């Protein structure tokens, strides 16, 4: 359900489950994390993309609902956290091509991005509280990336924001006119970044990670633990059933 293609120094990782709006399964997250970690030494930039109209609509809720003990939800949460951390640890830049938007777990993945390209009609946010799931796993990254004020609004309000608002808070960086132009622009950005001196990029990215760690207040592990703590409970079980019936 993912595809990997190396275009010179750019490794393109594509979520390939367009019929489900690239809804994430534990296997997909593990696979993406693996191909990030196993990128050849010559890879300077990773582009994370999604097939179809939407980059990623979040977790596969039907799969979660089919496992009422919460085992799939737990695997998704820890897989998501591991993926974000692996993207941050990757020594080159990470560019996300988020056409159509990034919702819930999809939005959380932006926590591992250095540059996000999207289109004017795209939507972003975390509607997950509605189904009894806490977006806390993403909070340590979103709080520092977008600022604590916007992060609070996004985590607690289940509504979505548009691309311009996402750019205003620093969640995305470039907005192109139509969804069709997002990947092409992301590749252009990636190729520009791939030409920059690798030592300077790796050092600067590592330093930014360190600065952000100092500002975070809570660790990524703590965020994950809060989300995990709710998993398997009645509120979430009922929420998932409602979501799947819709």
């Amino acid at each position: 359900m993912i595809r990997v293609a190396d275009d010179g120094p750019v490794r393109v990782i594509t979520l390939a489950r367009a019929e489900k709006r690239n809804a994430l399964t534990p296997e997909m997250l593990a696979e993406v994390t693996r191909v990030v970690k196993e990128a050849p030494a010559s890879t300077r930039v990773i582009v994370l993309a999604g097939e179809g109209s939407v980059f990623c609509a979040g977790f596969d809720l039907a799969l979660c609902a089919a496992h009422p003990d919460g085992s799939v939800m737990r695997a998704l949460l820890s897989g998501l956290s591991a993926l974000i951390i692996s993207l941050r640890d990757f020594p080159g830049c990470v560019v996300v091509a988020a056409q159509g938007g990034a919702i819930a777990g999809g939005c959380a993945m932006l926590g591992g991005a250095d540059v996000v390209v999207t289109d004017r009609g795209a939507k972003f946010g975390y509607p997950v509280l509605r189904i009894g799931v806490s977006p806390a796993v993403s909070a340590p990254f979103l709080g520092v990336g977008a600022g604590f004020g916007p992060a609070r609004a996004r985590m607690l309000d289940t509504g979505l924001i548009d691309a311009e608002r996402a750019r205003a808070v620093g969640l995305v960086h470039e907005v192109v006119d139509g969804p069709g132009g997002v990947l092409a622009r992301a590749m252009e950005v990636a190729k520009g970044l791939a030409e920059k001196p690798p030592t300077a990029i790796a050092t600067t990215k590592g330093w930014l990670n360190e600065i952000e760690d100092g500002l975070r207040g809570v660790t990524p592990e703590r965020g994950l633990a809060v989300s995990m703590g709710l998993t398997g409970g009645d509120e979430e079980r009922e929420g998932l059933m409602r979501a799947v019936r819709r």
Partner: protein
Amino acid sequence: MSDLAKVEVSGRIARLVINRPEIRNALSVELLEALHARVDELVRREDVSVLLVTGEGKAFCAGMDLKHVIDDPAPEAPARLLLSLAELTLKLRDLPMVTCAIVNGAAIGGGCGLVCVCDLAVTHESSKMGFPEVDLGVCPAVVAPWLVRKIGAGRARRVLLSGGLMSGREAYEIGIVDAVVGEPEALAGAGVEMARRLAEGGPAALRATKHLLNELDGSLEGGVVRRGAELSARVIGLEETRARLREKFGASPGNRP
């Protein structure tokens, strides 16, 4: 040395002028020392509540005088220069008066870092600003904490990892400056207006508010900026970086990162 940085005081408003226009106010060890001395004097000026920081001539500050550094055979030269910049940024941030950068022209690398250290900044649409360090193989580690505080980490990552320069208009849109005027000629008037407005604040209230803001965002913890200086110096010390710098602007003074 004293001529490299000037202070003029008029009522409650002071102006700190970076005065090395012949090389676009690039930061050498001597210029940094002159700025340190001026800022040390300003700490004691309880009669001043607003400080405008600007550059003499066409540029605000073209950044670190790296040409000088790579020509200097002493291996500790980069670290000395960067630590001096780091300490200056900490001192400038900790000044009791509210500070506003009047970005009269190019503000590049460390120069753009000084803009971010000031509480506010004003420029004109066609000034050139930004952080091209990674393009030169250098790590903008001293300025990174200040840019993150100014525009947030999400935007700062993009700016610092992408390198290049932006216009004053773009710097305004991304939040590096807080106001922008159309024509360069209009900037002086806008600066005077901003200073007048800032000086309307009660001096004790301004001081207390600024101090609290510094506490809130960790500006008073110098460790991260000093570690940034060491990191940046380490990258400049690498042979691959020195070779790149020599190649990029080996013999052309006045065009520095």
